[in-house]
């Protein structure tokens, strides 16, 4: 039930955003988050954006795993 779908914000008006993933568009309330901009990735749950997705953290987690693969080690 706590499924969240990562979607990209396309337009914002009156605390509502139109978000998109793979060509599917959905309206989502922005009542639960601040400072959202067009182009941001957000997690959508039950018609609400519940949190922004930190792209830099997403990249860093993967990078740490890849670096470990390159060195034959796994990060602590």
């Amino acid at each position, binding site marked *: 039930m706590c499924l969240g779908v990562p979607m990209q914000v396309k337009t914002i008006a009156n605390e509502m955003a139109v978000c998109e993933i793979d060509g599917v568009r959905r309206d989502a309330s922005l009542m639960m*988050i601040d400072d959202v901009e067009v182009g941001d990735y957000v*997690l959508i749950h039950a018609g*609400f954006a519940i949190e922004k997705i930190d792209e830099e953290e997403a990249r860093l987690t993967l990078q740490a795993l*890849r670096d470990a693969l390159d060195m034959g080690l*796994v990060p602590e």
Partner: protein
Amino acid sequence: MKHQDEYRDPELARLQLQAIGEAVAGFDRSMTLMEVCGTHTMAIYQHGIRSLLPEKIRLISGPGCPVCVTPVGYVDQAIALARLPDTIIATFGDMVRVPGSSTSLLDEQARGANVKIVYSPLDAVTLAENNPASNVVFLGVGFETTTPTIAGAILTAEKKKLQNFYVLCSHKTMPAPMAALAGDPELKVDGYLCPAHVSAIIGANAYQPLVDAFRVPCVITGFEPLDVLQGVLMLARQVVAGKAKVETQYRRVVKPEGNRKAQKLLSRVFESCDAQWRGIGNIPDSGLRLCEPYSRFDAGRALPVELEPTVEHDGCLCGEILKGKVQPVDCPLFRNTCTPEDPVGACMVSSEGTCAAEYKYGDWGMGAGG
């Protein structure tokens, strides 16, 4: 989503599995790790993760499916409300097939009750707006991921001055049941994979009291296969090293303090209360009810109904399955009288129930059941 596919990279998964194997190689006993989120349950089954892990790691499912932990009495109350004249029940899809004591909402719908499946609580508010002659009752089931969306719907209904929108509340909170199970000597949980999106709201710091009280490691983990494997690795390393701390694997979404705006929304509309959990019983301060200024939206108060005596179904082991004490294949009803088409217990109904996951992805007791 830019990075989504990369979190399914088979080569990185192979490396993670190797690291998990190395982490537990010198460990002299097996360890029990519990995932406490229905979405984790589904991800673990879907990607066959149990069968890939070393034998020393026993991965079990806990009380993380909101529909599954909802007591039968609540379903009976929803059914009684559905039988009232000029009443529309609005609900997330999973609830309609959950058996009550003698019938389900789906059965009631076939007999003429007006039951609508909605995608968002805001859709239920729109239903109320478009049907001023009917009462609309939204079935408020879910953890902290979902409850702020219901708070948002109530504030929207208030703003629109709707007099015909109600919520039947059975909201539950984390990590209360994790504390209840951590103290269970029969279970001996060595570590928790903590729910991803609940934690986005409540924050990583919310698990610190649990860790302090029970010295049980907690790792907040995302839902992609690499997330789950990394979460297991982080937990296994803590268990082997005898450590107990809160760690966050799912850093791209979860912050230490959580989502403060959502927390404010929650505490404006709801207050803490004791709650009944199927299988576990009453847990103090593990639920949320409407606070006084919003109590007029409470369907339980505004629309009194007479309830039939609660009947739990003979032989159904949902309660034990929700505590991680038995596996679906241990239940005599599993696959015999209890199937997704004709479910007896909630764990077989919900798309993220353990029995539904085992039915869909398991090989039924041939070694991958956990």
